[in-house]
């Protein structure tokens, strides 16, 4: 039985390689109010309009799928579905849909994008009183500067949700500073640091999540 499950999982993880154009493998350290110290590893398959990924940060597992569908006049539509599970306990199902615009100047040095939408989060627990269904605004702002023949990019993002979303903190702003270095034509190195606030609108903020990660991106096709 164990072999069968492992085989299925391997197949599930490898199969997207057939369609994906890039593979991201990232590892890092994250801390939330409940975790003490938590190292994680994630794999993310990325094509032109979709991406799918898995992240393990014991005792949590994250599975996410997202799309970014280009529309006319720089507009895009971006739905995202994310499941977070904790062994022998609760899980959280999150979804977002947002519309936004993305602009890049002709030289490719600067990119800016923004999006607004809605987010929904459903905390599923074995105990009926623990259930929590909530919904809120979804918002994103992203700025990137590329230099050194566009090989290195530095970015800052301000989001209410991310791909591997720590979804049970709905609505809380997440600030990310990151970058990537196109080392070869086939591979990049990426890094980022991010934190989340408990409350944006009133001045009693408290950091409720930090995350540092380092990764590689391989262009497959």
């Amino acid at each position: 039985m164990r072999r069968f499950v492992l085989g299925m999982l391997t197949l599930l993880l490898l199969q997207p390689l057939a369609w994906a154009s890039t593979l991201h493998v990232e590892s890092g350290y994250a801390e939330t109010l409940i975790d003490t110290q938590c190292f994680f590893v994630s794999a993310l398959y990325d094509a032109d309009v979709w991406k799918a990924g898995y992240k393990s940060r014991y005792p949590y597992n994250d599975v996410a799928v997202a799309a970014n569908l280009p529309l006319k006049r720089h507009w895009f539509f971006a739905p995202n579905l994310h499941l977070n599970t904790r062994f022998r306990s609760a899980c959280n199902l999150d979804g977002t849909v947002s519309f936004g615009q993305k602009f890049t100047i002709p030289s490719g040095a600067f990119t800016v994008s923004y999006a607004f939408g809605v987010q929904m989060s459903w905390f599923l627990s074995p105990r009926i009183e623990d259930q929590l269904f909530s919904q809120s605004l979804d918002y994103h702002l992203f700025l990137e500067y590329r230099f050194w023949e566009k090989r290195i990019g530095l970015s800052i993002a301000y989001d209410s949700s991310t791909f591997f979303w720590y979804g049970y903190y709905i609505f809380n702003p997440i600030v990310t500073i990151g970058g990537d270095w196109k080392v070869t034509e086939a591979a990049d190195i990426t890094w980022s640091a991010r934190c989340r606030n408990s409350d944006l609108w009133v001045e009693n903020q408290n950091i409720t999540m930090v995350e540092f990660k380092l990764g590689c991106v391989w262009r497959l096709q």
Partner: protein
Amino acid sequence: MKRLLRWVTIVVCMLSVVSCGGLLDEEDAYGKASNFTLQEISPALSGTSFTILLITDVHVGRQSRVPDSYDAFGNMDDWVTSVTSSGSYDFLVNLGDLTDDSTDSQYASAKHFYENMASHMNLGSFTTIGNHDNRRGGRRRFNEYLGSPMYQAFSFGGYSFYLLDTSDRSVSKAQLSKLKQALKNDSQPKLFLTHYPLAADSMSYYYLALTDSEEREELIDLMVSNKVGLWVAGHRHAQKGPVVYTSTCHEITLASLNGLDDPWESPPSWYVMTVDTLAKTVTFDRYEWHKGDGAGTKTDSFVFRLP
């Protein structure tokens, strides 16, 4: 190769630093000075029951922002007469949001109001900090004006009362760690008193309960496994619940003393909580005050069984 080694060293060093970890474990000076060491109240209970006057969300200064809300401080004489005419109390417990915006002038007025109320108590008064009390240096003012730690615990009549700081929509990791340790060493039945509710009973609850569902779940687990009979909260300005976790573990959200007669809030309310140590029950009597009334009117009463 040397360059690669340098990068690997940097990464390993960074990971080692963060793995020493606990980046979110740090508290400010006021949190560090707070603990859950049980304060024994004297004299000891002579009878079999005692009463606590519970108020929440006084919001001194709110009237300048919401003109229809009731100005508890401006009408203090009426309030004190009204509240204290409802009975004799052993303790006063305020569940947070004594001020509306944490300013010095609001804290000065709130202190006057709180101390006047507290002076009518037989044994003592306690307060928790709310999300409106900790803005722009509000934690310092809370500590200086009211002389209160951010969180604390006291024991009376064989029951332990834990006053938690949930003012920034979470129980900090450091506070939770101290709480777990204190619960381990405390075999008495307990009650948690704080500002934010735990329960989620509506679609739009994201702003009205603790933000982290997993933290909520952990707190409920702690309550159920450590003889905690009640989570008593404010913040919503309306009475909600009770939520039943077990037959001896409940949650109740209380209406505010700063009342507003609209569909989202309710008239100015306060509660008299009577703990019966023989029957192992706690009774809440709700009193409401309407403009033009001389004293409050008892409008509701409910009983919970304690562990």
